[in-house]
């Protein structure tokens, strides 16, 4: 797997190193954390969308489940952060497992059903009747475990693990078989690919990444409300970044986050009055001229990107 090793050395390693040392060079740790979070989430979405073609609009539901899994573990069970992270990740996977029947749907139907499921989880979590467990709409405070630096570092570790998993997916037989499912599930079945199993594994991997990221997010910001953890904007960002860079590749979602989230923050600070205009124009331009993302500038010339 020489190509895989090359991807790790020239893509994964530099990104992880830069993310790890960034707080030493730049003081706005919350912004840096947001970058790390979206870098991870975009790859998690890539695992299911890029490789199997299923677009989970309600991806934030799994993220929120992870965040609340963490929060409840700390508040109710009194667990230390690392154990709570495991519970958060497990909550994401459990929700993913619960939603696997949705994989029977295709295209827009899956996307919509997935979004509805995320809304359902949000409604449950924010229900005042469950205040004793989730704190309902009043939000959670995890000040006793607040550790911005350590949680940032854990966030980078999760990013590293995610990128390694994606580098494997990009270069493995399993990953290629998943892409066959995306292209044509019937043909893939005739090629001997276990379509249902492949989709399920990709979706659960994606859910694991979102659950874990949500848990780290909860730890890092430590005070949040249901509408923060289940903000549909998180789904939209992860989707747009992945599409902007180019799905089914390792560097596509990375580029998407760095360019688009970079621009987002730059124009949001410098010329906020034109913010939506510029941002909207950028996305419209992408859809019109580069529907397969930035990497298609290379791939359409026959150049293989990591």
């Amino acid at each position, binding site marked *: 797997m020489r190509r895989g090793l090359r991807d790790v050395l020239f893509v994964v390693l530099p990104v992880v190193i830069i993310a790890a040392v960034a707080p030493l060079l730049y003081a706005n740790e919350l912004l840096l954390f947001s970058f790390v979070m979206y870098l991870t989430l975009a790859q998690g979405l890539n695992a299911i969308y890029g490789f199997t073609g299923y677009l989970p609009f309600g991806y934030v539901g799994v993220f929120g489940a992870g965040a609340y899994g963490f929060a409840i573990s700390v508040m109710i069970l009194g667990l230390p952060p690392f154990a709570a992270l495991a519970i958060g990740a497990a909550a994401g996977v459990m929700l993913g497992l619960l939603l696997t029947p949705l994989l029977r749907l295709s295209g827009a139907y899956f996307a919509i059903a997935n979004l509805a499921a995320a809304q359902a989880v949000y409604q449950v979590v924010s229900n005042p009747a469950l205040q004793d467990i989730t704190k309902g709409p009043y939000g959670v405070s995890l000040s006793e475990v607040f550790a911005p630096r350590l949680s940032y570092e854990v966030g980078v570790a999760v990013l590293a693990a995610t990128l390694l998993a994606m580098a494997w997916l990009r270069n493995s037989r399993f990953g290629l*078989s998943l892409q066959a499912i995306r*292209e044509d599930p019937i043909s893939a079945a*005739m*090629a001997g690919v276990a*379509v249902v199993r492949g989709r399920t594994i990709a979706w659960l991997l994606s859910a694991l990444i979102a659950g874990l990221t949500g848990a780290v997010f909860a730890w890092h910001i430590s005070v949040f409300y249901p509408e923060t953890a289940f903000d549909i904007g998180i789904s939209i960002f992860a989707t747009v970044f992945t599409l902007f860079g180019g799905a089914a590749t390792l560097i596509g979602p990375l580029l998407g986050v760095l360019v688009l989230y970079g621009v987002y923050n730059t124009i949001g600070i410098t010329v906020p009055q034109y913010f939506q205009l510029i941002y909207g124009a950028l996305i419209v331009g992408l859809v019109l001229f580069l529907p397969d993302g930035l990497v298609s500038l290379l791939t359409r010339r026959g150049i293989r990107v990591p």
Partner: protein
Amino acid sequence: MSPEPLLRVDRLVKRFGGFRALDGVSFHLVPGEVLGLVGPNGSGKTTCINVISGLYGRDGGSVTFRGRDIAGSRAHMLARRGINRTFQSPRPFLSLTVRENVEIAAWNGRGDGTKADLDGLLEQLDLHRHAGRAAGDLNSAQQKTLDLARALATAPKLLLVDELAAGLNPAELTRMAERLRELARGGMALLVVEHLMGFIDHVTDRVIVMNAGREIFEGKLGEATRDPEVIRVFLGTAHAR
């Protein structure tokens, strides 16, 4: 003594709502045999292939492959057990390369496709020059060939061929017919659905003529063309005497 059938289809029924697409079809195939399936559009030929290859469930009868009933087996399991097919409209993985298309089938199908085997297969089917190109960039004849390559990469014992000849030019037709005969000589059983009678005549050992989900004739193609029921179905009552 004829060899043990590889595939035995017995009184197979497939309904779509109130429509019986297959209405009690029975036949068998032995290794190395090429059986043609002919009939007018809508007579149930492709449905038959879809049921045998596991894409459709069935509503009655049985399909036995290598002595085992394959009821309820998913398509990918059947592909691994040795049943594969081509599609009337080829369905390659368009954004993947020709080589990747075949690799996926070799890895998942039976797991014994070495690099040399795949190179050999691509060369045999004249696809080696396109190995690095995206399947979507191939012309339709090449995509049909790639569909066949994808099926063959799983090393099938039974190959279901659905209108492979349509759209090929005469030279390609002759080559394709020769390829199929060669596969049969190697011991593979083939079920060939086709409208081109010249092709069927060249390739098959015997044919089944279907109409409205039933078989109306089984035997040599030459005899079929003299069968009054076959003539009635294809040409109308006036021609059948």
